[in-house]
């Protein structure tokens, strides 16, 4: 009979392939604590309820599935925008390719530098929001990240910053396995925009912890890399103070597997959190948006707007929850997740949830999936718009509610242009 005792443990297998980066005393302590958190739950398996719609194995296993580097001659996203560039190649910060880490209103350090020093605000954040985010649902990949992150930045914003901070993730190595962890603290009354783009690696595990203080604002626009074979598991953990604002938009085109988790706690009154995403998948594409928003203060607003366009057997997943804690009166929570299925082979799986413990709240959620409206298509064609153009126009119209969540007009146009470009290249 087989001996169950020697059956290998997937979590330990994965850990055996990792080395904890050397760092200072506090860094060591938080990494060990994160490792303990991971061990207490283990990595997610196929039977994990939270991973019901997405197979975690290629994200959790020790070996990276190689991913070809996608060659194309298009300009990368956000090209031409005034911004502070921070470049990572296969998950490693590239100082030569990056701008100087000096900007008014900002303190920026590379993670390893910060961990070797005694930067109190970074100590108060690294792994802290991630730990809060482990209940009520465990997020083991994020704990693994806090334990083993090999690079990233810590960013403290002390005033309104004009230039966006732009993180560019290049993928060059077929087998790269990147673990990135960023920590961002936006101080009282300060504001910043963070841009992210690029595939980053064959496999990316990324955590971003964002602490938005009272009256502060954080804007985030992300264009996930177009490499067809790349895989990514990302987490955003955000904590919002009184009258603060948090806005995050993600565009995903291609990528064989993406799981984007976003965990937000509204802790101060009158805070506002918006998370949105537009995903376009053709063929071998699995995209999962998992969002958990906790209202724990009065008169806060949250919006989740997720749109997916799927064809040729692509799969979209949405798991979104709004939790309204006792006393979080006057909560305004809105959640919508929709998919446009361009053929019958594609799939959309959605699990929208509301859990409300206050009586004076307005929460709504809706989830739909459907095909292109034939009447609208005919109407456009009857006015002379060719079929393919009419389809693209209707797809962009479907995505508009999500794209409109991007506040900055230039950024919004950059994103729209890329979405149209993708549609043009993927005409049936």
């Amino acid at each position, binding site marked *: 009979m087989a001996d169950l005792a020697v059956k290998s443990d997937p979590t330990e297998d994965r850990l055996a392939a990792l080395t904890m980066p050397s760092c200072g005393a506090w860094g060591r302590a938080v990494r060990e604590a994160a490792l303990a958190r991971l061990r207490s739950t283990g990595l997610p398996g196929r039977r994990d309820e939270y991973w019901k719609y997405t197979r975690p194995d290629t994200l959790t296993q020790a070996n990276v599935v190689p991913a070809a580097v996608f060659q194309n001659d298009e300009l990368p996203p956000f090209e031409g925008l005034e911004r502070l560039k921070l470049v990572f190649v296969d998950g490693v910060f590239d100082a030569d390719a990056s701008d100087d880490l000096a900007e008014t209103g900002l303190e920026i350090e590379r993670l390893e530098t910060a961990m070797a020093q005694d930067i109190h605000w970074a100590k108060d954040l690294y792994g802290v929001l991630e730990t809060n985010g482990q209940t009520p649902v465990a997020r083991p990949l994020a704990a693994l990240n806090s334990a083993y992150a090999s690079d990233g930045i810590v960013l403290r914003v002390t005033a309104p910053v004009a230039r966006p901070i732009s993180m560019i993730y290049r993928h060059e190595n077929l087998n790269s396995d990147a673990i990135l962890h960023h920590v961002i603290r936006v101080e009282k009354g300060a504001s910043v925009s963070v841009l992210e783009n690029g595939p980053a690696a064959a496999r990316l595990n990324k955590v971003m912890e964002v602490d938005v203080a009272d009256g502060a604002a954080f804007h985030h626009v992300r264009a996930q890399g177009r490499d067809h074979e790349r895989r990514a598991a990302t987490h955003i953990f955000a904590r919002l103070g009184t009258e603060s604002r948090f806005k995050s938009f993600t565009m995903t085109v291609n990528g064989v597997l993406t799981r984007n988790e976003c965990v937000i706690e509204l802790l101060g009154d009158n805070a506002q959190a918006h998370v949105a995403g537009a995903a376009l998948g053709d063929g071998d594409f699995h995209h999962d948006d998992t969002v958990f928003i906790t209202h724990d203060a009065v008169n806060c607003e949250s919006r989740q707007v997720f749109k997916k366009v799927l064809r040729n057997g692509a799969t979209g997943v949405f798991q979104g929850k709004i939790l309204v804690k006792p006393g979080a009166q006057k909560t305004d929570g809105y959640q919508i997740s929709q998919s446009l299925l361009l053929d019958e082979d594609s799939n959309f799986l959605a699990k929208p949830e509301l859990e409300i413990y206050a009586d004076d709240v307005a929460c709504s959620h809706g989830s739909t999936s459907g095909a292109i*409206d*034939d*009447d*609208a298509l*005919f*109407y*456009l*064609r*009857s*006015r*002379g*718009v*060719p*079929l393919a*153009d*009419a389809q693209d*126009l*209707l797809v*962009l*119209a*479907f*995505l*508009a*509610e999500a794209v409109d969540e991007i506040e900055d007009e230039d950024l919004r146009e950059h994103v729209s242009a890329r979405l149209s470009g993708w549609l043009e290249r993927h005409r049936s």
Partner: protein
Amino acid sequence: MLEIKNLHVKLEEEDKQILKGVDLTVEAGKVHAIMGPNGSGKSTLSYVLSGRDGYEVTAGSAHLDGKDLLEMEAEERAAAGLFLAFQYPVEIPGVGNMTFLRTAVNAQRKARGQEEMSATEFLKVVREKAKTLKIDADMLKRPVNVGFSGGEKKRNEILQMAMLEPKMCILDETDSGLDVDAMKLVSEGVNALRDAGRGFLVITHYQRLLDHIKPDVVHIMANGRIVKTGGPELALEVENNGYADILGEAV
């Protein structure tokens, strides 16, 4: 200009014959009206001519200026100069009315090998035409027909027609849902487009529209066929006596 011969159409999905031999010719410069009881096939005729899916032509033909309409895609028919003002204009959330108009105008120009209209020129023309139809700037910005009242939708159809300047205009019950003033506006819009090179096919239930848009020829359609053709007096006869007499004598 528009020549329809012995047109037989059935539904693709069901074995249901709707048009049972329609013969109709509209000459350039003329306004033809079609009247007829509910369900007689008037809208079906307009959809089949403009290329909507879901119908099967089992016999007959339809030509515009000698070109076989039934062989063309909907967008090709539009570029060839055919326009249908819908009985039920479609709402398109997320597409701005202005974007829609501009995309349509430029798509047709492109198909005909003409240069695209510049943004400023387009804006100037659209504002002018919208003004005469009392369509305000807000309606131009809003998504196509979304939240428009019945009458606003119909005026929006006429605005599209005015922008696209088609050769052959089919108006399917453009008068329904219009108040007295809007009826005048819409009629003026149509009359402004009347010229020697353009034909009109106006589907209506009421003489009232035909008081404003004077038809040259009136057809009565019943049970998938044109059963009677005459002058403007035919419409008055319908208005006064209904269809019973006409259908009785046609049978």
